């Protein structure tokens, strides 16, 4: 079968800097951070050194029926909300949505930690059989790793394939990439792709114990994270969700769908070695494979949305890889500087925000990048808001476990 073109016809995000397109664009234009003080969790919060968190602050009005709510933890609420917005925005008919040619690629890093925590509380505190029985039939459905994908499937009656990656920080970039491949190779005509993660202090504790979390700006949350900056001192964990609708180009065009952009390439590989340390060879290869897959050259790329979590070594390795593959031509910016690291959601949120910048013809600067670390200086950092058309962008993400992805998107003119 001839490879098919794949376009994005709808997108939505719940983020620490806003839950609507207008609010998110405003935050990017004004340089508003969504990092806030860490909330007390009455469990492990007080032992965590990092006191900051990328927090979804704007209220969300959910309107989910009971038969859907009962299998949903907080992460599924986020997922179903962005999925609903994308389905509505796409204008796909109910017949198509339920007909089997629409699939789902959606994930989270480990399901719902809030629900898992409640289960453990019961399990560890149980003294009799009756208490054990309060662990309900639905608790697994709320907490399991593919809870986002299957709750979306149930709520909207989607009957196509389900892909639910759970590869930490590359979860949703894989969702988009695997969704892209599903449509490109004719396995589905459309894919609803994304990722979500809920507020979770355990994730902070994990990175905190690895000395990877920011601690130097606990009193000024908006000053961290600081990707590529000399004063960067680690990542900031965050919550959020995002979704995109991918469709086969001719199908989308025929039905008059709004086309926000085209996915032109995807690459995914693994380092095959250390599960934590950033790997220059691995991610350099990913970026090269992405370009090969898109059949474009490095000079065609105008903008790079860097993974850039603001860890000491991660940013240096990424800058070196970008420098080696792209040189100093494309603008490089780090969206995590606005909201922290939204974990499973970061790939799709960064894709959605890149689409917004493409549509509005601007490139937001990397927030808090005041003094570029000379070891990261070989690329073209964006330190001030610029009005600039973006035709082709690369969105790159790298995960614990040594998983790397590169997505290439293009604006259709």
């Amino acid at each position, binding site marked *: 079968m001839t490879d098919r073109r794949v376009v994005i016809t709808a997108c939505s995000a719940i983020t620490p800097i806003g839950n609507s397109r207008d609010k998110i664009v405003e935050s990017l234009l004004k340089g508003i951070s969504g990092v806030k003080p860490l909330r007390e969790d009455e469990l492990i919060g007080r032992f965590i050194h990092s006191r900051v968190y990328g927090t979804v602050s704007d209220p969300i009005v959910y309107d989910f*029926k*009971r*038969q859907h709510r*009962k*299998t949903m933890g907080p992460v599924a609420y986020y997922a179903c909300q962005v999925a609903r917005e994308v389905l509505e925005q796409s204008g796909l008919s109910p017949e198509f949505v339920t007909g089997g040619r629409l699939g789902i690629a959606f994930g989270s890093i480990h399901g719902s930690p809030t629900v898992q925590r409640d289960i453990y509380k019961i399990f560890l505190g149980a003294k009799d059989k009756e208490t054990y*029985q309060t662990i*309900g*039939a*639905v608790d697994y*459905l709320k907490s399991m790793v593919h809870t986002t994908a299957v709750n979306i499937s149930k709520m909207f009656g989607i009957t196509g394939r389900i892909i639910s990656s759970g590869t930490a920080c590359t979860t949703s970039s894989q969702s988009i990439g695997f969704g892209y491949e599903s449509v490109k190779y004719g396995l589905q005509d459309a894919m609803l792709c994304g990722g979500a993660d809920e507020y979770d202090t355990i994730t902070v504790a994990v990175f905190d114990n690895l000395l990877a979390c920011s601690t130097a700006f606990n009193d000024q949350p908006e000053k961290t994270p600081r990707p590529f900056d000399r004063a960067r001192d680690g990542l900031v964990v965050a919550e959020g969700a995002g979704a995109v609708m991918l469709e086969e180009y001719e199908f989308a065009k025929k039905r008059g769908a709004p086309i926000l952009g085209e996915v032109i390439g995807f690459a995914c590989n693994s380092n095959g070695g250390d599960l934590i340390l950033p790997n220059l060879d691995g991610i350099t290869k990913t970026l090269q494979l992405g370009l090969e897959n898109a059949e474009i050259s490095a000079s065609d790329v105008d903008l790079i949305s860097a993974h850039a979590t603001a860890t000491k070594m991660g940013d240096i390795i990424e800058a070196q890889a970008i420098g080696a593959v792209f040189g100093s031509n494309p603008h490089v910016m780090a969206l995590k500087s606005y909201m922290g690291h939204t974990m499973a959601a970061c790939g799709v949120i960064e894709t959605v925000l890149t689409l917004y910048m493409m549509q509005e013809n601007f490139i937001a600067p990397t927030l808090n990048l005041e003094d570029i670390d000379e070891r990261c200086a070989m690329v073209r950092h964006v330190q001030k808001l610029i009005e600039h058309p973006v035709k082709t962008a690369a969105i790159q993400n790298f995960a614990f476990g040594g998983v790397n992805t590169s997505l290439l998107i293009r604006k259709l003119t």
Partner: protein
Amino acid sequence: MTRQDIENEVRDIFLREFEVENPELDVNLREAYGFDSIDAIDLLLEIEKFLGSELTRDEKKQAMDIRTMRQIIDYIEMLAEKRHAAQGQGT
């Protein structure tokens, strides 16, 4: 325990656990209120609490054909009578 007591309790359970107010006695619960397999499991737990005793595997299997409110009330009434009779034999 009268049949009316049982009906009142089941209505309470439906309102509290399944957000269904005054379900009709003879309609198919799945079709009318979206009552599904997960709800059925939760309902059995609520029935155990109401009766103050655990249901046997056979008793749970008997519940698999239930489709309406009236059948739920019949089922609980049967279970209550069975337990009452067992208690009588024991004294």
